[in-house]
């Protein structure tokens, strides 16, 4: 079973601008931990937005977990993302006015499915996850802004993993970390994804990380769209 299957994907920001994405085919198997490499402006962020069901392509099919998400309505795509996708951003992953625990539990409030996946108590699962990520002591922290950048990224991992979504999308989550912490962070993320059986799509321009993944794909290989055009 493939987690993601793209065919003939075409996307442009507006009709008077050239294509940002023009991908003939991309398939990611279930449980795979894929390293997606690309320079900035190569369309990787746009691709992530399409896969997460935020942007709708102008052509082609996007099969995500055997659902044709480009054919879903707006509301269904939002629900699909809430139910099946965990996101980790580059930095500033946390909602500043929520506690560590509340940040981790955030997806459970938008998805009954992920709430249900956590064996009865989402809060217990959140505490377990934070414990596994070495953050047990940070749970009582009054504000998440008191945490270090590395700790914040690990809280973001816990949030992405809670309720065991099938697909984890990480958008350069280590770019704000130094080499040593980057390694530890990757260990945790890859280990957790493997343990939970989630598919991981990891986007980065840092090629030194690619040996840790089951497969590496470069945007320049798959995206035929003009790469000089700046894309978000």
């Amino acid at each position, binding site marked *: 079973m493939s987690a993601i299957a793209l065919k003939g994907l075409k996307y442009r920001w507006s009709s008077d601008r050239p294509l940002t994405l023009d991908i003939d085919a991309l398939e990611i198997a279930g449980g795979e931990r894929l390293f997606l490499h690309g320079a900035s402006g190569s369309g990787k962020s746009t691709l992530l937005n399409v896969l997460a069901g935020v942007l709708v392509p102008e052509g082609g099919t996007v099969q995500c977990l055997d659902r044709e998400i480009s054919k879903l309505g707006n509301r269904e795509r939002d629900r699909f993302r*809430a139910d099946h996708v965990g996101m980790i951003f580059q930095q*500033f992953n946390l*909602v500043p*006015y929520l506690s560590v625990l509340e940040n981790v539990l*955030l997806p459970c409030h*938008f998805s009954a499915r992920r709430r249900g996946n956590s064996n009865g108590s989402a809060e217990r699962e959140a505490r377990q996850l934070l414990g596994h990520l070495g953050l047990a002591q940070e749970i009582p922290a009054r504000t998440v802004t008191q945490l270090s950048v590395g700790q914040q990224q690990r809280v973001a991992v816990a949030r992405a993993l809670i309720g065991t979504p099938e697909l984890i999308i990480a958008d350069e989550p280590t770019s704000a970390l130094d080499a040593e912490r980057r390694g530890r962070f990757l260990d945790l993320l890859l280990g957790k994804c493997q343990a939970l059986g989630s598919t991981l799509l990891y986007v980065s321009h840092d090629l030194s990380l690619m040996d840790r993944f089951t497969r590496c794909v470069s945007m320049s290989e798959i995206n035929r769209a003009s790469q000089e055009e700046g894309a978000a």
Partner: protein
Amino acid sequence: MPYLPALAIKSAWNRRFTLGLILISVALSTLLLLGVERARTSARQSFAQTVSGTDLIVGARTGAVQLLLYSIFHLGDATNNVDWKSYQAIASHPEVAWTIPISLGDSHRGFPVLGTTPDYFKFFRYGAKHALSFAQGRRFDGIFEAVVGAGVAEKLDYRLGDSIILSHGTSGVSLVSHADKPFTVVGILARTGTPVDRTVHVSLAAIEAIHLDWSGGAPIPGVSIPEKYVTKFDLTPKTITAVLLGLKSRIAVFRVQRYVNEFKGEPLMATLPGVALDQLWDVMSIAEQSLLFTSAMVVAASLAGLVAVLLAGLGERRRELAILRSVGAGPWQILLLILGESIFMTLAACVSGLLVLDMLTWISSSWIQSHYGLTLSNDPVSTNELILLAAILLAAATASTIPAFKAYRQTLVDGLTPRI
């Protein structure tokens, strides 16, 4: 989704300083608008309750509003007087049931002095046809006896038996006083919430007596008639200021009015208190409307501030909104988040504005009552005030669609990767 309101409150709490300031601004403007409305309706109510049961007010020919103002509210001066003979003729008209002659022009420490007959206490009605009642003491009987209103007694701390001196003229500070003929307080009226509270009542004979040795508005030099000799003079007044009339049947009101208006002896007029009040509202409504309009503009300005704060906040909240999108919040939920925050803020501001107004009303009502004779309503909120509050909320909700839709568009364009 019940989680959304909780999230909105936490988010708002995180920005409590900015939002607090704008909340105070909206609350103050609400307070102003409701305050103007409350003062306006209270004034109307007080005015309407000041006189009841009186069918006609008679005075020298002037405007109906002016006659009402000086005869009932003791505001301003009469242009001319009514001859005692004319009064007697009108009083003996077959349709007239009772009369209250009124003589104004003197004052006591800023409070108007009203010369009248004991019929005043028998026939005068206010509010829902309430008669005057005495808190202490009795009606005046002798010449140098006075009955004071509740407000006068309270402000000047008068008790029965106190001696008071009347001043000539109606201005607050008078240089010429009737110091040679002091009066004794024999009665204190119960509070009415009308100008009666701020009035000193004496007999018509007393007004005559204190002016015996006066001529043309000043004491006659070298002439002084001692108190004990005043009864040797004829103390029947020559003129009075106005007359309140009660008719045997209300049906005759226009007939009697015509009789007075066409009175042969001198130019007089009679007006129905209700008609004069209506004219007064017409005059006042311009002031009322402009006050209401001004306060409505202040509310609009504060709501514009609210919208500006929300719009400015969107820039800072880009990341927060993108995170919410990534965990599954739809653009419509983002829109509702912003809209809900604004409506909740305005609601909180409206409630605090109203509470502050109620508190101010509660604290100051007795002071306003004794200084201005204005009775503020004790109701925590009136229907009109509720309508104004609803209008503020509606205006806020409408104005907030601007930042809400901007947030909606922003989250659609930004997706999961906001540009910071």
